[in-house]
């Protein structure tokens, strides 16, 4: 089943691996399938808005590009909404959510924040247009860095042990059902072709299988150098660098830059192959962008790569 046919796609990956970029690219890829996408940013990050050259996302989803909606999940305000819903009397609910003790318990209770995030996602998943079609399909969740991301997905199971009865426990069960249904939830793991990120990605795959029983649907290996040089080129460059007197000083950096690129490119290939040996789902290599600031065009390029890697049927534009 294709990644984009799932109702919710969680993007997971270590900080700095390009998770937010991939979230945006996936939204663009979904848009090309004529889907209405909701992209969600959790917590106090603020990267999605600028990527789409628009204002920071707010709680209420708004259209940030044609066919692409963006929203923010703020666990604290979700929790206070929940209290309002539960209490029914705005005055009392306000007193409660403003009380210092509420703050303490909300801060200190393990997993409460994660649960609020998942609860909010669940509500958006349930939302329908005209009572028939889901309003958003898919919902793309730009998850927190791997460690925390894992706790986000692991939470319902762990906390159900604590919260056995009560309204929250009921909601938890619904959330758990949503997560463990492979037709509804999928994981896109983002990693870099480097030693430490690949190790962490492999740890994530193992933990996901064991702990949360959610397989990784797709792994994006982000930032792979293009194969610029042929094997013949490589030999020629190596030979030239060996003969010090054959190369004028001002041309050495050109050859050395090529040598380093080739060396890294081989390393990257090895790392990508290591992740292929795991249950990493479909592995898609995303080409390196030679800049610290991505433009919309760069992200479109990554979306192209995703469309190709996910073997999506091209659809006519809207």
């Amino acid at each position, binding site marked *: 089943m294709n990644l984009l046919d799932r109702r919710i796609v969680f993007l997971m990956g270590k900080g700095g691996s390009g998770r937010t970029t991939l979230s945006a690219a996936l939204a663009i890829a979904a848009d090309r399938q004529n889907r209405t996408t909701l992209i969600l940013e959790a917590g106090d990050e603020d990267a999605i808005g600028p990527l789409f050259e628009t204002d920071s996302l707010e709680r209420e989803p708004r259209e940030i590009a044609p066919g692409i909606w963006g929203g923010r999940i703020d666990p604290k305000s979700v929790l206070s909404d929940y209290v309002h819903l539960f209490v029914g009397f705005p005055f009392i609910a306000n007193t409660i959510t403003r009380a210092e003790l509420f703050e*303490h318990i909300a801060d200190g209770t393990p997993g409460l*924040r994660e649960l609020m995030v998942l609860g909010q996602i669940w509500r958006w998943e349930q939302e329908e247009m005209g009572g028939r079609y889901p309003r958003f399909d898919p919902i793309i969740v730009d998850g927190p860095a791997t460690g925390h991301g894992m706790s986000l997905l692991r939470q319902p199971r762990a906390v159900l042990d604590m919260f056995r009865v009560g309204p929250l426990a009921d909601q938890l069960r619904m959330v758990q059902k949503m997560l463990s249904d492979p037709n509804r939830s999928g994981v896109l793991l983002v990693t870099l072709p480097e030693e430490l990120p690949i190790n962490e990605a492999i740890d994530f795959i193992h933990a996901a299988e064991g702990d949360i029983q959610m397989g990784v649907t797709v792994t994006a290996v982000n930032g792979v150098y293009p194969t610029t040089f042929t094997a013949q080129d490589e030999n020629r460059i190596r030979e030239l660098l060996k003969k010090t007197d054959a190369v004028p000083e001002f041309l050495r950096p050109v050859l050395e830059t090529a040598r380093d690129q080739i060396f890294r490119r081989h390393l990257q290939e090895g790392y990508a192959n290591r992740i292929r040996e795991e249950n990493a789902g479909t592995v898609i290599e995303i080409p390196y962008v030679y800049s610290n600031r991505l433009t919309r065009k760069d992200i479109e390029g990554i979306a192209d790569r995703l469309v190709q890697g996910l073997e999506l049927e091209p659809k006519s534009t809207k």
Partner: protein
Amino acid sequence: MDLFERTRHSQILICCGSGGVGKTTVSATLGLFGAMIGRKTLVLTIDPAKRLADSLGLGPLQHEEQRVPHEKFDAVGLKPRGELYAMMLDTKRAFDRIVERHATSPAMRERFFSNRYYQNLSGRLAGSHEYMAMEKLHEIHARGEYDLIVLDTPPSRRALDFLDAPQRLSNLLGDSMLWKLMKPYVKTGFWGLKMMGALTFPVQKVIGNLMGMQVFEDIQDFFKLGDDLFFEGFRRRAQAVRQLISGPDVLFLAVTGPMHSPMREVRHLFETIQSNDMAFGGFIVNRVHPHHHPENIEPDALIDDLQLDSGLADRLLKNYTRFQKLAQSDREMIQELRKTAGPEAMIQEVPYFETDVYDFSGLVRVYEHLKPDWL
């Protein structure tokens, strides 16, 4: 002033920055430098990458200080005048130690350990890792066994989490305000609590209903576990930790890469450290692409001087231009950082090596690159 010059007299170095920028590498390199100049040095890390941990001689389950064996140095031809130790922090264990320290009786301690809310709390509380790292730092520093302690802060998306952590935990565990709020209800027992809650203070009731009464009882039990002395002890300790990290023995270092978002994070970090009157040592920008001269090369130069065919010449230049552009982009990011940090601030660049740094020889490579000439 360079990185090593700046840090050579500090007792405690705290390396911060968002995840994935190479904090552990920088911390270990600073530790290596300390050991080389004759200081007894400890690198304290939370969850180092497995291979880096192995390279420092840290096994997966060892949470005691381990000396980096001599053979490691011998193998790379280094002769340290001091000693290098490394330690991986077990945050769960550190939490238990706090309870052990402040518990006023063995029975109180046991009740804590068996409380379900505590078991969950100690493993997962937001910021607890950060706090435990600071707490451990305080403990080791107080023992006075090391000339230098380098703390590699826990991986978090937000580099600043550790600054609020003492406050947050202190709020929850030791805040007399919370304790006073809960105590009357707690003292009168469950029914007292339920009645008082329902009548005068709806918070508990709602929270109880929301979560299920059983959870609430666990939480309530949790607050019954300690006595005034326990919470007071904890609160004082949190204050002492806060004092230590704002004190003169500590120097903060911000680690980043030249990419947009970790740069934004360290700029923010810098401002927060400044506004909290903490000592800021400077920035370390990791993995910077080197800029080469000349800027522009004509394909003809390659074709004529090296007798290359035009296809390879084009490919070589295409590759060269790409990396020059990247180096330029890195340089712009660093210039932007300079604008925030001011002309006085130390910004130490570490080049992008063609392999990743994840073992002892990798560390030595970074160290060799940064070390001053006299060493």
